[in-house]
């Protein structure tokens, strides 16, 4: 599977308080980077469009996007499911 890091981070940067040169801390809670209930919806929608995936209902929970790492893993999982 392709590395999605660049596109993934671009999506996050579109919605969160991230300055371009800063590296994204994948273990930091996204809430600390400005993710609230409205931006969470926008981020998930953008991920779906960017990676042509669809989050199933059981993944539409806070745990899926608590950190960038978790969200990236979820996106990768859905891409793999789609490819298989």
């Amino acid at each position, binding site marked *: 599977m392709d590395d999605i890091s660049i596109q993934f981070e671009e999506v996050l940067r579109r919605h969160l308080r991230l300055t371009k040169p800063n590296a994204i801390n994948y273990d930091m809670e996204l809430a600390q980077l400005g993710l609230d*209930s*409205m*931006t*969470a*919806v926008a981020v998930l*929608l953008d991920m*779906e469009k960017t990676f042509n995936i669809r*989050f199933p209902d059981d993944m*539409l*929970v806070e745990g899926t996007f608590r950190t960038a790492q978790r969200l990236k893993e979820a996106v990768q999982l859905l891409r793999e499911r789609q490819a298989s």
Partner: protein
Amino acid sequence: MTRPLPDASLGSEWTILELLARGIVDEPERQMVRDLLLTDTLNWGELLEQALRHKMVPMLAYNIISADLRFDIPTSIYQHLESALEWNRWQMEVFRRETVRVAQRLATRGIHFVVTKGIAFESTLYGGLGTRCMNDIDFMIAPRDREAVLSMMQELGFRPYFDWAKDPRREEISSRLNPDHLPKLMREIDRPGTRIINVDVANSLTWTKSPFDVPVEEALEDIVEQAVPGMPGVYLPCFRPIYQFLFTVLHLFREAWLQKFVDFGNDVSLMKFGDVIRLIDRDCDKLTDSELRRIMETHDITRPVAWVLRNLDDTFHTHTLKLLALEQRGEEGLLASQMQSSGYVRASGQSMRQRLQSKTRDSSRPVSPTRSGS
């Protein structure tokens, strides 16, 4: 109760709707509405458009018909208003029957619930005259019953749907992430005049992660029943007056502050403020009791309640803040500091009255003129 008549600075059309929204309580108000309706310069297009925006067409129709103005206003408009009132009454009848159908099933399953908003108000606050508009039927349940109720509603022929929203997928994700309501539910009935019935089931008095809330379980602890017009012996459970008031006010607060309601064109309206005025008029003795104050302090909701009432008083020339001894509460600055999410409406220089009248709700939350920045 005598209240100052509204100033007509926003036009005759707007003044008529303000008077009707707060409820005609005496002869000077009745006469003012009549005089304004008979003004030569009255702009019927403006009046009808604003009545539509504020879901007040049936109420306007009822007042024109009951004032016997048939031969004093344009015939085509009179006939249309007559039809609109009749249609609303029919719709109400369909809604009542469906509400009872759902309520009976909920009761059979042992679900603790109440009906709220339009279906609770139309036969009580609005006298069952068919003047209160309703888009859907509203229920309130406890969060623990969400799955059971969703499953039961599907057995009754309802299905979740998101197509009402401009971006259905956004709404679907939002609904999952913010479980203060079940997804909107619809059932096709295909009856003349009413193709579908929408049901909205809430499980919070405000919204997910709101800084202000009252536990639903507490509000459902001690409820009352109200009769259903035209269905002898049938009753629906409702909040008792204090919780009915708190829910209605907090709901209005929610719609005033959450951007998504502005985006959807469904935020504050004259009719929603009218509900609050009528509740206070009806339940004044219960709302001035110390229990209301105790509940507001226990749940730290005094500020949003006072914010709504301050805007209500500024708009409708009522004195609800004084009545409930909340004159010193509802500070805009403190509230704004608690409402910092990107989903909340930003402050503007508009008054609530201007926001209500504005046809482009692209702007934002008004800052109360008497308390801004305090």
